[in-house]
């Protein structure tokens, strides 16, 4: 049973077809990659899946329910969390608060309880704090919990963004170029981590990536996007030898 299913999705910006006739599915528990040359429409596809943009045509179903006309926060509450290509942390807040915000929509206490500090307030706040620290431990950030997010080194900021997305307790995690700007060793660590969090949290993961070693190393299935259309899909070995993909990335031979 597919967890996420997009059928015939197109997005037009005026006359520009950013994504056209985009079909994809992601099964529960799968680790799927979305690759393509610069400007192929990968991030636009992500933005369509997360409700930042509404598709011009087509349908997107998640967990057997349509995601059309839903706002990004509603989609997150349904169980899709994401990271961003250009890191978007709450940069002036502490590392701990960054993760705590991801719990916000799970919080039960209301405005009255928070303002007068009665009822569930203290109990739930303690729970949130404990869970947030738990996630920071997984990503080896717990010793930096009081630091301001923007002061973290680049790699740690990337990890924090993933920790924050996981703290929202999603079923599907979308990673937009998680290895961007990382050195080969950091990329290697990231690969191990992505595999591990999938097993640990029983997650389904869809990722956009430029780093071929990462994509070929961990993805079970790959979609290749060029000029907004899917030109190939399949297991990494097939994609590697697909002439269409080689042409898209390297250009065709001169006759």
């Amino acid at each position, binding site marked *: 049973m597919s967890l996420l299913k997009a059928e015939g999705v197109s997005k037009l910006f005026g006359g520009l077809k950013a994504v056209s006739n985009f079909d994809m599915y992601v099964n529960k528990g799968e680790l799927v990659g979305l690759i393509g040359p610069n400007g192929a429409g990968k991030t636009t596809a992500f933005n369509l899946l997360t409700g930042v943009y509404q598709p011009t045509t087509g349908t997107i179903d998640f967990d057997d329910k349509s995601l059309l006309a839903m*706002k990004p*926060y509603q989609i997150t509450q349904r169980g899709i*969390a994401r990271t961003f290509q250009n890191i978007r942390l709450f940069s002036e807040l502490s590392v701990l608060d960054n993760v705590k915000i991801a*719990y*916000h929509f799970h*919080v039960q*206490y209301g*405005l009255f309880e*928070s303002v007068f500090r009665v009822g569930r307030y203290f109990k739930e706040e303690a729970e949130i704090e404990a869970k947030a620290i738990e996630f920071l431990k997984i990503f080896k950030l717990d010793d930096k919990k009081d630091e301001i997010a923007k002061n973290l080194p680049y790699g740690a900021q990337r990890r924090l963004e993933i920790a924050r997305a996981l703290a*929202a307790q999603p079923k599907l995690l979308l990673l937009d170029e998680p290895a961007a700007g990382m050195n080969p060793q950091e990329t290697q660590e990231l690969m191990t981590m992505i595999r591990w969090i999938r097993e640990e949290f029983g997650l389904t993961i869809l990722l956009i990536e430029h780093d071929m070693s990462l994509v070929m190393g961990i993805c079970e299935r790959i979609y290749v996007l060029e000029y907004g259309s899917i030109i190939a899909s399949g297991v990494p070995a097939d994609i590697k030898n697909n002439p269409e993909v080689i042409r898209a990335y390297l250009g065709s031979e001169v006759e």
Partner: protein
Amino acid sequence: MNLSRIKDIKIIALSIVGFAIIQLLLTENIIGSFWELNIILIGINIIMSVSLNLINGYTGQFSLGHAGFMAVGAYVSAILTVKFQMPFLVGLIGGAAGAGTLGFLIGLPTLRLQGDYLAIATLGLGEIIRICILNISYVGGASGFMGIPRYTNFAWTFFIVLFSIFFIKNFVNSSHGRACIAIRENEIAAEAMGVDTTKYKVMAFTIGAAFAGVAGGLFAHYFYIAHPASFTFMASFNYLTMVVMGGLGSITGSIVGAVILTFISAALASWPEFRMIIYSLALILLMFYRPQGLFGNIELTDLKIFKRFKGGRK
């Protein structure tokens, strides 16, 4: 976890002692009526700046129409006490409800705007409220709403200030407040983390407006009169200055900003021609040497010196 509750109780106890001392000095006439007026003005300004800080500093929505909501609170509470002979408390609650409702109705469409556009829209709305009041003869029109009884005294002001500060402090330290701060930090990321950004922007705006309404009620019932000229955009700007001076995102900062600016304008009352010069010089110096405001986004209780008092606990 109840440590924060103990801290709250300590602060409340300490401020009640402070209240008793000032109240004693007032009843013994050691503090004259000029400074009594200024103490009450400080209280009203604290409510205004702390509530504006919730909108501008914590939620990051630049509003320039705060005096407009104060005007609504002033007039609604005055109508309730004068025309309907309601008790003062009902007047204040009515003023808060009136200003809050208007804040909600105005917030829904205008909070879709961002940055400068929102500032201009709220500036305009503040003026629209004032001009509307100016043309309603039921509340006195251009000559102001006269004959309001003086119900506001130091005790009322003090306890309402205390309530406002604790209300807003507890709000920003809850998950709901964190949602507002997340909007300020990065609206797209906040939305992607499941925060209903529209809801929280409107919520912060409504709460801020309601407290401005309470401040307006206190104001009208101290000066016997509610006059449209008290609620011009210059007044809004004055409150904004207090918030920026103290530091966007610091309640302590807003309180200090309100106290300092009220004192400066009171102390310079006899030299009105120098007042604006010193006022603007102070702001220019502040922008040069401390653009984040006196407190930045730090609270007094965050400072190391306070942590030491708590017994070195982290």
